[in-house]
């Protein structure tokens, strides 16, 4: 029994911490966001150089061969540093699907993801789908040797910068039929593709993408797209949760420090017992979240864990992260008072990333509903 990151994982984490210390102060981050793309291509190249972009990928594909624990380790630090560069969309979503795809030039493309020369995005959600990824109206129809995509995908994370897209599209069945979905790969600038980008509240980028008979390569078995997506969703939930845990730790630290310096009524506000107890509750919410993350990492890497148990653990984790993220975010702002409302302080930005995480691929209610099903439906 051991609930700490390994020495190797700690080295990986520390490399991010050190880089962020030197290159990613809150002001430096803001400067990085002022680039046209909303992030720094130079940083991205550094991420590749330092090997971070290789973490999730198998050694046979030139990757680091990291497990879900390694992914959690780096995401926790990216969360603490509030990195806006599109790590999650590229490594977990696009990269995760690509590696599990049947793309003809998969090895080459993965190599480019790892060396930082290729950015991609996964187009999954649609405007009507809410948190139900099987609700897909975008269609793929056979067009000679190839397929042709039509319809609109929404909230494509990292969409504006993507050179390649992987698209979940319907090849058969009703609009919510899980077995009629397949994955397709195409260039973002292919004919019939129109990308409408917008920033998100956390400073990251997304896009709605219109497909109008765009030519694309089938990169999963026909009807096998949803199964691959579900596999990747396991990583998605862990990665987002780990990032959230990193953010919670940072917000708690910042809040405690602020109350020790802010004076009202002649004393530091950290001396008010009512506020102390609330900060204790924030601390407990963080410790809870971290503990369940660690538990989930152990159980998901244990072959003997049943599918039902894995579903329970993952949905429990995201339910708890959503609940505790909300508590910590709200309290962090409240205890900072007016200062917490300013764009100038980092607090609000951390809170907005936490909130964004709680809107991605499910919210508290939807995860708890799934937990209830996994836990009590038998």
């Amino acid at each position, binding site marked *: 029994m051991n609930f700490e990151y390994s020495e190797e994982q700690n080295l990986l984490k520390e490399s991010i911490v050190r880089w962020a210390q030197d290159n990613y102060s809150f002001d430096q981050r803001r400067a990085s966001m002022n680039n046209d793309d909303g992030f720094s291509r130079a940083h991205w190249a550094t991420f590749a150089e330092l090997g971070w972009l290789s973490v999730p990928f198998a050694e046979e594909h030139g990757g680091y061969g990291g497990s879900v624990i390694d992914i959690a380790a780096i995401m926790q630090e990216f969360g603490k540093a509030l990195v806006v560069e599109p790590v999650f969309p590229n490594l977990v979503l696009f990269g995760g699907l690509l590696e599990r795809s049947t793309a003809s030039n998969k090895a080459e493309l993965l190599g480019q993801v790892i060396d930082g020369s290729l950015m991609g995005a996964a187009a999954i*959600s649609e*405007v*009507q*789908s*809410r*948190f*139900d990824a*099987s*609700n897909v109206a975008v269609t793929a129809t056979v067009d000679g040797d190839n397929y042709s995509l039509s319809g609109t995908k*929404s*909230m494509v994370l990292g969409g504006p910068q993507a050179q390649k897209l992987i698209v979940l599209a319907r090849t058969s069945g009703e609009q*919510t039929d899980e077995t009629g979905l397949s994955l397709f790969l195409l260039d973002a600038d292919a004919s019939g593709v129109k990308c*409408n*980008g*917008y*920033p*998100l*509240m*956390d400073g990251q980028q*997304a896009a*709605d993408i219109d497909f109008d008979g765009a030519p694309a390569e089938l990169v999963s078995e026909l009807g096998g797209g949803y199964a691959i997506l579900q596999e990747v969703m396991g990583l998605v939930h862990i990665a987002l949760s780990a990032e959230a845990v990193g953010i919670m730790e940072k917000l708690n630290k910042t809040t405690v420090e602020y109350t020790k310096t802010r*004076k*009202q*009524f*002649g004393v530091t506000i950290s001396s*008010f017992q*009512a*506020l102390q107890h609330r900060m204790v509750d924030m601390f407990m919410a963080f410790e809870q979240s971290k503990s369940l993350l660690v538990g989930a990492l152990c159980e998901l890497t244990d072959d003997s864990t049943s599918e039902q148990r894995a579903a329970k653990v993952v949905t429990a984790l995201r339910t708890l992260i959503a609940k505790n993220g*909300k508590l910590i975010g*709200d309290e962090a*702002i*409240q205890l900072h*008072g*007016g200062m*917490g*409302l*300013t*764009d*100038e302080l980092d607090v*609000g*930005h951390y*809170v*907005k990333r936490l*909130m*964004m995480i709680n*809107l*991605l691929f499910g*919210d*508290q*209610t939807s995860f*708890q*509903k799934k937990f209830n099903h996994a836990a009590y439906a038998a």
Partner: protein
Amino acid sequence: MDNSFSSADLEFQKEVRDFFEKEFTADLRARVQDGIDVKSTSVEWQKKLNERGWVATDWPVEYGGTGWTPVQKFIFEAERCAAGAPDVVPFGLKMVAPVIFTFGSDAQKEKFLPRILNSEDWWCQGYSEPGAGSDLAALQTRAVKDGDDYIVSGAKIWTTYAQFADWIFCLVRTGSFDKRQQGISFLLIDMKSEGITVNPIHSIDNYHSLNEVVFDNVRVPAENLIGSEHQGWTYAKALLAHERTSIAAVGDSKSALREIVELAKTQTNANGRLIDDPLFQTRLSNIEIELMALEYMDLRVLASLSSGATPGPEASLLKIKGTEIQQALQELRMQAIGAYAGALRQDEYQNDLHRRGSTARRSYMYGRAATIYGGSNEVQRNVIAKAVLGL
């Protein structure tokens, strides 16, 4: 015990409802919802209200106010919310005007009230300072007498819409006494005065409504002092109690709730409509039930005001519960919308959810202020502990 209106009140209700239906046009509504051109839109709407004689709901008739009973005010407020119309910008009409007509000189009344009534002057509030938030009495901005003028130096913060303002009403320190609440004066300052700098504060809702207002040896005629020197705290406190009675915002929360219900009827996936999801229903009813209770809390206070009572610490209770409910609704609205609640507008909205999401996020983020300003909810709890429970 009964909650019914008199027939005169019912008639009044109809009159108000008709007014909103006619005057709060679709065009105005769209501009309000988009939150652009705040100043010109508000002024246009307030002028309409003033034409009807309904812009100053809290003023006595003699100064051009409505002279309404508490019940009439309640009806007007409920109809306003039901119509989705905005409240008037409070700084002039609801905040400084009551101080002027209660404690001001005749000259001040003549000079300021008509221009407030007709939305000719835009006012802002200079209370909080960088070192004086919840602890307002710690304020440091100094006003030193120099002949017939005061020389004002210091800084005010969180000043909403200072960028639009013609005038600011300020609490300034004019003397040192044992009690910090003494030696504070209430001063009206022309924003065009030399030495005033307005520094924008961008807030986490990605908007600019807050400011820092810096005073560098600003010369203010002593005739702009309200009442007596050193007595400003008393005037401000009277105003604060006033500010809190409308803060329950029951009408606005009812509208917000209705909007979420309507939205949740259109959000549909394989499992059916969101509104039929028992977990979502329960999150909604957790709030709606509290809101029903808040409405009757509010009405009970209103009824006691009608029978002549003065606003007391129950205002703190309405503020705490009112803002907690507002924030809970803001959160649930984002959840009902889903990921689009995190999407900012770029060139245009991608679709209606994107548009709704943008509004929802903005009100969530800015809504965090509600539990902080006007005396934070922590301070309100201290007030109840002391004034009601005797702790």
